[in-house]
């Protein structure tokens, strides 16, 4: 082989020659995600890593997201088998204080109400499947619905078990809408509540003892074992982290879950999720459908959370500000902060943050339970 033809071959290996339009567009999408992360501070830990992963995955020739590429290695290591989202969940458990929820257990119901969005989006996906240019199976629809859970690790875990080919768009939708909570929720809150309702003050929460906090993760796991074993990987990981946090004798583990381990896993998970944003699979009508359904799920979940809170306010002895129902979608702690902010706009003396943390962490449980239902029912229905 002479120099000339070697140079020709080298030229043929450059990016200019091998670029496809799809790859180019996806790299732009990755850059936009990074821009939003940096300029708008939207979920930066995830959007920077996912965005960068999307760029790397769409480089021609290099095959960084292929099975031998380093993003492909991350993917095999912890996405395909569902390991990384569970490790993240351990860290989330170790960072979560269930105290506000234990002080007012009724708020758990708000975390249930907000999951209506999940099942609405699932039905929506089945409807969209009727369109000739969109094709969603039941398990696809379930994975799409879980975006409404507003919980990144849960969405990734469910999708890895049911519809791994949709992982890219579903994870992107989940994290994008989670980061857009401050934009999506306030108008919905205002539309479904009266000014008077938004001004409702709530009683201060009682002190919760350490023993209650230690026993809660065990009790919740026990219930999950009895009723819904398919949710136990998620709930189990969450409660392991939470028990490590509250039990007071394993500081080393609690700190590691909250720092070194979750940080390392976040890097790997973000890049690997980004690696699923390959042009060929991402640029499709299905992705548009997923983005639309995800947004609908968020909106519906916010609404149903608020509506149940309004009902509870009517029937309950203590007054409940319906705004905190919106925090039931999870998106911890953003949704609780949004609820608190909307409340203070009406009445600067109204401090709802702690009250909203109850439904907020309940929402994490709620979406994990919904995930368990989907993981139990969908395979049965598809097999049957």
């Amino acid at each position, binding site marked *: 082989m002479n120099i000339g033809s070697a140079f020709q071959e080298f030229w043929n290996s450059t990016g200019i020659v091998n670029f496809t339009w799809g790859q180019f567009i996806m790299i732009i999408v990755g850059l936009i995600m990074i821009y939003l992360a940096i300029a708008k501070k939207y979920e930066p830990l995830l959007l920077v890593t996912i965005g960068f992963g999307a760029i790397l995955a769409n480089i021609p020739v290099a095959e960084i997201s292929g099975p031998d590429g380093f993003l492909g290695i991350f993917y095999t290591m912890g996405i395909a088998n569902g390991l990384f989202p569970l490790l993240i969940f351990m860290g989330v458990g170790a960072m979560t204080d269930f105290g506000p929820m*234990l002080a007012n*257990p*009724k708020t*758990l*119901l708000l*975390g*249930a109400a907000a*999951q*209506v969005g*999940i*099942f609405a989006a*699932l*039905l929506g996906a089945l409807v969209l499947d009727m369109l000739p240019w969109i094709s969603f199976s039941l398990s696809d629809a379930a994975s799409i619905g879980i975006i409404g859970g507003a919980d990144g690790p849960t969405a990734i875990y469910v999708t890895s078990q049911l519809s791994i080919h949709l992982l890219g768009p579903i994870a992107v939708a989940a994290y994008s809408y989670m980061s857009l909570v401050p934009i999506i929720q306030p108008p919905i809150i205002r539309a479904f509540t009266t000014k008077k309702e938004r001004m409702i003050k709530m009683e201060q929460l009682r002190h*919760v*003892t*350490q*023993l*209650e906090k230690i*026993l*809660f993760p065990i*009790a*919740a796991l026990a*219930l*999950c074992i009895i*009723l*819904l074993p398919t949710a136990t990987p998620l709930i189990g990981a969450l409660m392991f982290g939470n028990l490590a946090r509250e039990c007071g004798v394993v500081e080393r583990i609690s700190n590691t879950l909250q720092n070194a381990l979750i940080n390392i896993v976040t890097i790997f998970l973000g890049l690997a999720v980004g690696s699923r944003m390959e042009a060929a699979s991402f640029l499709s009508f299905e992705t548009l459908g997923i983005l639309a359904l995800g947004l609908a799920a968020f909106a519906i979940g916010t609404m149903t959370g608020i509506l149940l809170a309004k009902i509870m306010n009517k029937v309950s002895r203590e007054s409940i500000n319906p705004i905190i129902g919106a925090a039931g979608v999870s998106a911890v702690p953003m949704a609780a902060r949004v609820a608190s902010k909307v409340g203070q706009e009406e009445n600067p003396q109204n401090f709802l943050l702690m009250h909203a943390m109850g439904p907020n962490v*309940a929402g994490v*449980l*709620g979406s994990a*339970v*919904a995930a368990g*239902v*989907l993981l139990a*029912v969908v395979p049965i229905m598809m097999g049957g």
Partner: protein
Amino acid sequence: MLIGVSVVFVFLILLVIITKLLSYVVLRYFPEKEKPAARPPAATAGKQDAEIAAAIAAAAAYTKR
């Protein structure tokens, strides 16, 4: 998919009940021991004042010499 929503609600309603029961039992039979309230360090201020007074007295004495 009414099933799904129902199961989620049944689960969380049961969790509310269990949580309330748990709190009831804990608060009734295993109440947290009162932590001895940290006394306000009332004496300190006085002591410090005394020291300053002593210093000033010393300065005064020195001055008079």
